[in-house]
């Protein structure tokens, strides 16, 4: 039961964020209208991306440090394979949340920044705002990671080279998510020219109590659900690895 606890907490928190986030009375902000509720879903998705990519890169680092032959004999001799699977699968779930974050962002921008434009216009959905470009680049960096993996036939070579790449991929998230979008002017609320001064994602001072009571639990909920998804994926792949081996 204890190992299922985080899953139950995750389900509960996301349920709370969905029900409470859509039905509580909240202040309406300018042209955002009711769409400001999207903050409970769009932002947590990006938190989940960062956590999952961190899990991924930690496994890649662990993989590269596994030079000691003894270590290979842990986990019944599957230590290396399992670590590589964990790096790959968490990046996959991270990419899923990255895509969800982009979609929720596009819908949100369509109804706030560009509600006066017809839906048939592409620039009603996507304005090449600095943060949009950064998010898209981060997605491409991880798609390149998958592509890189698919080019190798030798498992060990694949795992080793993609682990090195994955470290660079994760390091690139720091400027892409935390520095560049905050330093440049743009339409996004985190941009340098925002009324709150930009410079941060939603910080305590910018988020009133009505919002933060749903916002923070939602972040934890999305991270836990994302981790659960990763756990299911990784366990499936580990089982496949062991069963296919000398079967």
């Amino acid at each position, binding site marked *: 039961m204890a190992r299922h606890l985080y899953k139950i907490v995750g389900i509960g928190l996301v349920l709370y964020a969905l029900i409470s986030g859509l039905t509580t009375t909240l202040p309406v902000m*300018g042209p955002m*209208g009711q769409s400001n509720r999207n903050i409970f879903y769009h932002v947590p998705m990006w938190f989940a991306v960062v956590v999952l990519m961190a899990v991924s890169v930690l496994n890649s680092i662990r993989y590269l440090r596994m030079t000691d032959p003894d270590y290979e004999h842990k986990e019944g001799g599957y230590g290396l394979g399992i670590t590589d699977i964990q790096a790959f699968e968490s990046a996959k779930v991270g990419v899923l949340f990255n895509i969800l974050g982009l979609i929720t962002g596009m819908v949100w921008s369509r109804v706030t920044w*560009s509600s*006066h434009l017809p839906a048939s216009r592409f620039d009603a959905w996507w304005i*090449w705002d600095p943060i949009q470009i950064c998010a898209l680049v981060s997605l491409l960096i991880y798609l*390149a990671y998958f*592509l890189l993996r698919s*080019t190798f036939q030798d498992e060990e070579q694949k795992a080793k080279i993609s682990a090195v790449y994955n470290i660079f991929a994760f390091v690139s998230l720091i400027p892409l998510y935390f520095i560049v979008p905050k330093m440049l002017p743009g339409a996004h609320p985190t941009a340098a020219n925002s009324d709150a001064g930009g410079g941060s994602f939603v910080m305590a001072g910018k988020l009133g109590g009505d919002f933060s009571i749903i916002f923070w639990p939602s972040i934890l909920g999305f991270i836990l659900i994302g981790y659960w998804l990763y756990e299911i994926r990784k366990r499936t792949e580990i089982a496949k690895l062991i069963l296919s081996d000398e079967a």
Partner: protein
Amino acid sequence: MKPGKIIQLLVAALFTVFLAVSFSGNSSSYTTFPDARKSGNTVHIVGTWVNRETASYNPEEDVFSFSLQDTIGNISPVKYHDPKPNDFDKAEKIVVIGKYESPEVFTADKIIMKCPSKYGDKEVK
């Protein structure tokens, strides 16, 4: 490595570079009215709608004219070839994308409503 995959990787790398370039081109274009007038380029200008009572829409030409004050305080007339966008009154800041086609009036090809970044409580102003 299989040759086909290498080509795919190259395409991905090129696309990333293209994005990076479009990025630097786009982001540098946020500016102020005097700079826009001097350069004559297509730029982004963020500002607040001022002198609201003088704003008007001319249905015959389909032109909405209003005054915008940029972040350092310059006020310039702006015309937009469309009716006044809905939510225009509610947006606290507006981004106009366009250029000075004549030295007097900034022509906005596109308008974006910049949304507030403070998720305040009801009592917050």
